[in-house]
């Protein structure tokens, strides 16, 4: 299993659109949830994920094969999100109705993607942490990235990631304790 690299190669070199469709099928939900940890809005995260796939289709960048395809895709997604945040530095006000809708959609997605009840509780607690903590914990605990891959996606050194993970875990533990939940793996 090459985690989408062959699908992307098929799309890039032979123009086979089904390759891109397979990538979207496999990585859409995870990328949206990761980008949600970045921008804090599930709709924006969805749009950014779509933008990332469009970017793949238009520019057809070459995967240098340094890391896994997933790491590379998440890096592209992160860059797209950074561009978005730069362009829209002013926060947009969202009505309470929209907020409720956003929460329910996010819950639906996390239910479909994360599945485990315990992890869903942790994910909800993640939403109350800093963006950087959310990102690093999402990549390590939900996407099973190792420190090196996480460092590649977040464009930080391995040492910085280790420090960040340590602090993020501490913050998450406090948050869960506040909510009366004990998670032994932390």
């Amino acid at each position: 299993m090459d985690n989408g690299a062959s699908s992307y190669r098929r799309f890039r070199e032979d123009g086979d659109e089904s390759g891109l469709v397979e990538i979207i099928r496999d990585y859409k939900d995870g990328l949206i949830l990761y980008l949600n940890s970045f921008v804090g809005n599930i709709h924006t995260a969805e749009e950014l994920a779509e933008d990332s796939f469009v970017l793949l289709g238009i520019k057809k960048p070459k995967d240098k094969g340094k890391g896994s395809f997933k790491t590379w895709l998440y890096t592209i997604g992160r860059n797209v999100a950074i561009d978005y945040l730069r362009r829209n530095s002013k926060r947009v006000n969202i009505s309470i109705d929209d907020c409720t809708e956003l929460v329910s959609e996010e819950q639906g997605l996390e239910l479909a993607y994360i599945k485990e009840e315990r992890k869903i509780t942790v994910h909800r607690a993640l939403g109350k942490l800093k963006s950087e903590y959310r990102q690093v914990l999402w990549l390590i605990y939900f996407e099973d990235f190792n420190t090196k891959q996480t460092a590649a996606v977040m464009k930080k050194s391995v040492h910085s990631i280790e420090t960040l993970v340590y602090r993020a875990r501490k913050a998450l533990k406090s948050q869960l304790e506040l909510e009366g939940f004990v998670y032994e793996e932390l």
Partner: protein
Amino acid sequence: MKNYNEMANDVLRRIGEHEIKQRNRRKVMKKVIIPTFCFCLVALLGISLWQVDFFAKKPSTQLDNSSVIGEQDLVDNKDGSGENNDTDGDFSPNGLEAPPSDSDNSATSENSDTTNSNGVIDVIGMVKYGGTNYVQCSTSVKAYTPDKYLGEASDFEGTYKTFFSDVSGGLYMTKEDPDVLMVELKNSEYTDYVILKKEQG
């Protein structure tokens, strides 16, 4: 939230739209850039030709009968020795090389204007002295020595009536032959001589 099929359709549609837009942009670029490039090329060519005075009028050498310029073919002789470096005896003061002259033709024809390959008219020198016509010939200047000064060539009837402003032309008899006259062409840079022989018949 879109499912993966909806998102895939949206992504492929957007990629298609982008490709169409790119294709149209390329078409427009081709339509605009190629004529612009050609125009710039022609303009550059025009400017460069203009810089080298390509369009400047060539000095007109067409002479009418009322203002015949005297000896046009003057050799550039900066040492003032009066030696003719041109083997055929033709000189070109304007840097225009005259074609080899036909000595028979030059000796016999009073109105012997000939057009050379550059389209420049060569005028054969002629002076009327003592009721006789003396016509320029290609005899070597070394064979003769100037003797008695007769006056300025421009004072006599003939082709030296009208002269270049910066050239003076003294008319001399020669020691060697009474039928041969010499015109000393002189300005600040050079001195040269033209041999005129008495016209036969």
